[in-house]
Structures are given as C-alpha cells and as structure tokens.
C-alpha cells in the first residue's frame, strides 16, 4: 500500500489536530491520543501509515498524577523506527479503553494481561478474562497502590537487616498478622471458593453435530497440561475435540507467574539484570542485552567497541544453542524420543563452557552491564570459541541436517501442518522465526539494527511454506547465518576497554521512557522502561516473544489433529519463564 507520509516525519497531531497532542513530558516521545478517537486513529495508523505490526501494548500507572496510561508501540514489517501512541484516562474505576483487537488481533493476550494486572477494561474484547492470576484473585497487582498480603517495604535497597551488627528478623519489623491484609468485604470465616475454571470453559466454542441418522456427537474437552511432557513446562491448553480434530483451543497460563514486572519496579536498575536471566532461561545473554539496551537509551551512554563485539558473539552463540535445543525438543515432540535431544545437548554443553568461562555461570550469566559487559573474555575462552566456530559447530549443524532434513518420518509429520499465512502472522504480532517461516523477512537485526549488527554480512532467512517444515528450516538456516556472523566477529574483534568508566552499583538514570528491543532467538524481545529519576524504575515491562507468539496458537491448531497440536506448540518455541513472567 502506497503512503504519502514518510516514516520519519509522521506527525499525528497535524492529521488529527483535535484528538492528538505530542507527548511533551521530559524524556518522552510519541503521541497522546484521546480515548474516544483511539479506534479511528489506530485504524488510520494501520491502514494509511502501514504500521502493521503491533509490537507491544502495556499499561502504566501514574499514581501521583492520578492517571492510568496504555501505551501502544507499532512498527512496520518493512523496517524503520516505530510509532508510539498513548491513551490516558483518569485513575478511577471503571477504567475503560476501547479494544484494538479488530485492528491488530495481536492485542488479544496483551489486553487481557493489562486487565489482569491493571484493571483496565477493554470493551470490544471478546474474551476479557484474567490471564496470569486466576479468576477470583482480588485486586490488580501491578497497580502502584496494591500491596501484597505480607507487605514488607516499597523499594530496594531495603533497610539493612544488620543495622548495628545485630540481626533483625523481618518478623520483628512486621509481626505476623499485623501486615496481613484482607480485601474489603472479605470474611475468611464464611468464604466459599468459586470455581476459577468456570469462565474458561464457558469461553470455549460449543458445538454439537448430528449425522443423517440423527445421531448426536458430543464434544470432548481435553486439558493438556500444566503437567504434560510436551507442553514445555507448565503451559496448559484446553482443547475441544471432535473425534481427533481440534475445534477450539484456549491457552491457559500463569502457572509460573511471579510478577517479574512488579519485582522489577521494586529493584534498582542493576538489580534487575540477574532477574532478566530468569525470563527466557535458554537465552540469558540475549535477555541481558535487551534490558541493557533500554537502560542505555535512557542514560544516553555509548557502549565500548570491544564490548559490542563480545555482545554480538555471546548473543549469536545463544541463538545457536537455543535453536539446537529447539531442534532436539521438537523432534522429541514428534516422537523421536530423547536421541536428537542428546545430540543437541552435547553441543550445548560446549557453548555453556564458554559462557561459564566468561561469566562464571552456565545458564544465569548476568554478564551484560550498562555500557559494556562485566568482565573481559579470557584468552582461553576465546581460543575455545574459535575452535567451536571454525571447526566444531559447522560440521555438527550439517550433521543435524543430514540426519533430519530429508528424513521421511519427519517430513510426513511437518509438511503442511500448522499453516499460518503471512497476513495472519503479522496481524497476530508474531515475530522471530515464526514470522520468517511465513515468508516475511522481518529481522530486527536488519529492520532496526541495534549494537553493531549493521557491520555484519548475513542473510535474513525466510521460507514461503508457512508450516512446520518452514519453521524447522528457518531455524536450521539461522544457525548457519549465526555462524557467519560469529566468524566475522571473531576475526575482527578489537582490543580495548570493556566498560566506559568504573563500574558502579547505583546507576543514575534520568527521567523518561525507553523501549529497547532485540531479535532474540524466539522473536522480538523488548524492554519498556520508565524512569522518574529515582533509583528504581517506575515501570518495567517485558515484551516477551513467547507470550505474544502464543496468540496465533488457536488459529494454527483449529482443524488439525490433536497429535499435531503438540508439534505446532513445539514449533512456536515457548519458554514458560518468559511466557508467564
């Protein structure tokens, strides 16, 4: 679609002079949109300005200003910077903002999350239920005035438990039961629990079929998970079946929910770094990078040259080990139990050895810092890295291809299964290998390069088939591309300092907002951080690719067999730590 407005100078306030004003708070960008005109403006942004990918929708609670805000971040799949627009509403119940689900269906789960955590209702959303907590949960935990039942202190650093060399137990400061709060009108004596599952089952599609003899077939509801060997952790899907065919499907999540974002707002900026490791625990290095990127944008600091190279090296190694393990687990889901996984873990251990040598930890690396990385790469690790990149990994990835790519059993399970067209993939905000397997060449390393990715020569891998076969091939080919990047980075890495100045515990972050996003192995991983100049972030939001890629699960599964549901879910490559946050 041709557009007359160039990407850089989109000025919503001249197009909609009555409804849009520029966001002129210090450190903020984007546009403030009137609630009543949201649908009109969003349609315009989608249809006329071609911002087709809704990256993230999130809420912010401005308690001091008595305002609630919903932030929309949209991008073009053809690349370029994004457009941010926000809707502000007074902070008193009932808070309502029209749903944009008809414009960008990818808003589905994200709006449910905002309702769950902030209590903002989205009229027009067909299935607005709690998503991370459970039905019957009292209150909306991300609100700034919501306190947990055993509330201790507002923000870190907490007061010392050893003030004068004497230890104080938390219970001495806050005696048990003194800090226990019940919701208003709640009496524990005559509380009768309601069934939290009821709303879920009523949201499923109902059907009955009659054949010509008048025989009625009943629907079967199958609960897969939360403890199921093929749901990759504690994911749960409620599936309505007609025989073996999937008729309707609802993902149920939150079984690993620890409110990462609320913890993030309690911590200081540096405190959050190790927590990001525990989001997507296969790719801790990539998570670190996205978070560091957002805070670096806020602080306005440059990253040292050598660190940029180390970051690229670590992040591409992460991608290779993630995709390797994905191939192993995917084959596991298809029925090739354990053997491919053992092959994958063998290579993974070698990559983890490098992580361990540079950071001290195998999985939870906590390696990146604002402005660089925490310590330099040891010589021995670099030697190992070269050996891996030049000798070991290329052959091993080819071995995977040789064993699997032409394998007839594999092909019969993956070809034509789980179809998702490019249009649907963009509409449901899919990113990463999932989107590229639908033929959309969208890779943030190219679309909006971060770090030093503009210096490297690599291809954005796409496949036109839109099915499981394409998703498998995109990941295999991406490993080859990662190796290409690694070869270039290893041969050109310069010497130099790794941090711009002396490392500090407490970084000073000026007020403002920043959105840092990277191409993590699973998709677009973004961190939206708002600072008010204090030691703790005011808002800390994670745009998790696993979470948002689940949006299209029902679309891909309906009409397929229940056995293929396992494969389709496996191909999305979810990690529950990131999905539930």
């Amino acid at each position, binding site marked *: 679609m041709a557009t007359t407005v160039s990407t850089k100078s989109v000025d919503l306030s001249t197009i909609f002079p009555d409804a849009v004003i520029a966001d002129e708070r210090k450190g903020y960008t984007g546009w403030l949109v009137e609630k009543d005109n949201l649908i009109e403006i969003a349609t315009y942004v989608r249809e006329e300005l071609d911002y087709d990918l809704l990256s993230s929708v999130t809420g912010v609670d401005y308690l001091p200003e008595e305002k609630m805000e919903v932030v929309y971040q949209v991008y073009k799949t053809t690349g370029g910077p994004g457009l941010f627009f926000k809707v502000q509403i007074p902070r008193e119940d009932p808070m309502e903002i029209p749903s944009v689900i008809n414009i960008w269906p990818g808003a589905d789960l994200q709006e449910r999350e905002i309702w769950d955590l902030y209590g903002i209702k989205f009229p027009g959303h067909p299935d607005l239920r709690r998503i991370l907590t459970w039905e019957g949960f009292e209150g909306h935990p991300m609100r700034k005035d919501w306190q947990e039942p055993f509330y201790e202190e507002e923000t870190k650093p907490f007061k010392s438990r050893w003030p004068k060399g004497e230890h104080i137990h938390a219970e001495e400061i806050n005696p048990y039961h003194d800090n226990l709060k019940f919701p208003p009108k709640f009496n524990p004596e005559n509380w009768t629990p309601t069934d939290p599952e009821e709303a879920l089952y009523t949201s499923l599609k109902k059907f009955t079929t009659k054949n010509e003899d008048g025989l009625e077939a009943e629907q079967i509801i199958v609960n897969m998970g*939360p403890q199921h060997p093929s749901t990759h952790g504690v994911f749960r899907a409620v599936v309505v079946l007609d025989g073996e065919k999937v008729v309707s499907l609802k993902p149920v999540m939150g079984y690993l929910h*620890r409110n990462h974002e609320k913890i993030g707002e309690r911590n200081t900026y540096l405190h959050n770094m*190790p927590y990001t490791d525990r989001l997507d625990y296969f790719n801790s290095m990539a998570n670190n990078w996205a978070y560091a990127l957002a805070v670096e944008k806020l602080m306005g600091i440059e990253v040292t040259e050598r660190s940029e190279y180390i970051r690229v090296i670590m992040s591409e190694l992460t991608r290779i080990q993630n995709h390797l393990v994905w191939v192993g687990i995917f084959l596991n889901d298809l029925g090739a139990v354990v053997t491919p996984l053992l092959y994958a873990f063998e290579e993974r251990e070698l990559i983890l050895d490098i992580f361990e040598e540079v950071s001290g930890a195998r999985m939870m690396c906590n390696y990146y810092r604002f402005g660089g990385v925490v310590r330099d790469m040891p010589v021995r690790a670099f030697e190992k890295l070269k050996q891996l990149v030049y000798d070991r990994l290329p052959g091993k990835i080819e071995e995977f291809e040789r064993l699997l790519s032409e394998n007839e059993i594999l092909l019969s399970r993956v070809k034509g299964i789980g179809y998702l067209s490019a249009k649907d993939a963009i509409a449901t905000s899919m990113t990463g290998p999932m989107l590229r397997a639908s033929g959309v060449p969208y890779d943030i390393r190219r679309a909006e390069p971060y770090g030093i990715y503009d210096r490297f020569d690599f291809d954005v891998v796409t496949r036109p088939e839109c099915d499981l076969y394409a998703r498998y091939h995109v990941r295999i080919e991406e490993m080859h591309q990662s190796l290409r990047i690694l070869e270039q980075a290893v041969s050109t890495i310069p010497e130099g300092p790794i941090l711009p100045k002396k490392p500090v515990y407490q970084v000073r972050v000026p007020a403002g907002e920043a959105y840092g996003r990277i191409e993590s192995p699973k998709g677009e991983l973004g961190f939206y951080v708002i600072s008010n100049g204090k030691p703790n972030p005011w808002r800390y939001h994670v745009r998790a690719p696993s979470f948002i890629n689940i949006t299209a699960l029902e679309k891909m599964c309906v009409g397929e067999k229940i056995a293929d549901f396992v494969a389709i879910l496996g191909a999305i490559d979810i990690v529950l730590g990131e999905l539930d946050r």
Partner: protein
Amino acid sequence: MGVEQKLGNMGMVTTTLEQFVNWSRTRAMWPMLFGLACCAIEMMSAQAAHYDMSRFGMELMRASPRQSDLMIVAGRVSRKMGPILRRLYDQMPEPKWVVAMGDCASCGGVFNNYAIHQGVDELVPVDVYVAGCPPRPEALIHGIVTLYEKVNGEKFTDYTDS
C-alpha cells in the same frame, strides 16, 4: 568394589531383607518428568550425555506420577501451581521422595513476593534440598546420591506406623 567381591564360593550374598529392598529402590528410582522453570533445563542437562544421570539408575523419566518414585521440584512454585503440585504428589504411589531442586523450590529464592510459594516444603514434605540458582547438574546428582544414603537407612517400620 562390586557385588562380585562380596560373593562367596557359593555365589550368594547374605543380607537383610530391609537392606536388599532399600538397595533395589535406590538402583531404579524413576523420577517424574516434571519441569517447572530454569532448573528443569539443568535437570535435562543432568540426564543428557555429558553428565549422564542414568549411571545412578535414573534414565527413565516418567511423565505419569503414578509410575514414579521421585519428584524433583525443579523451579519456583507459584500459588496458581501449588494445588496442582500437591495433587501430583498425592497421585504418586508410596514410597515416594521429593527433591527440592534450586533456591526457588527450597526457599523462594530471589522471587520473594505474593505470587510464589516460599519453598515447596509449604506443600509437600521434602527429603533433600539442593542449593544453587540453578544448581549445576553435578549438584543435582549429589543431591540424588544424598537421597540414596537416606533411602538406604530407611526402616520398614517407618512405613508401618502411618
């Protein structure tokens, strides 16, 4: 030192029934395939070729609680997951053991807030706690060997009382 050194000329070993039962329990203990969070990946590593937990009689992970002896709680247990975890434990046949793998399962770890059970021992009795965030595969294997020591010392009367 293997069993062949204990064999006498008659090719027999004398032992108590209790010791024999405990010995056989430790040699084929099947853990439940139940991964919660980050620690589950290290649990997978421990099972993979590099660390090879099957040296200790654990190559089989059972997805069904009814076929397993050992529950390795690998990760944080949220309040939403709590009832399900307890139900899985109740479905396991006796004798059964629980290893709390990692800091989150042991004491809540770094996630000290309303959404996480501060230790899985709020829900099920725990035999061995393995520290670390996440524990290395060696640490998990050490935890399991520690559990074997405990199992080797168990008495039949421990079960008859209840």
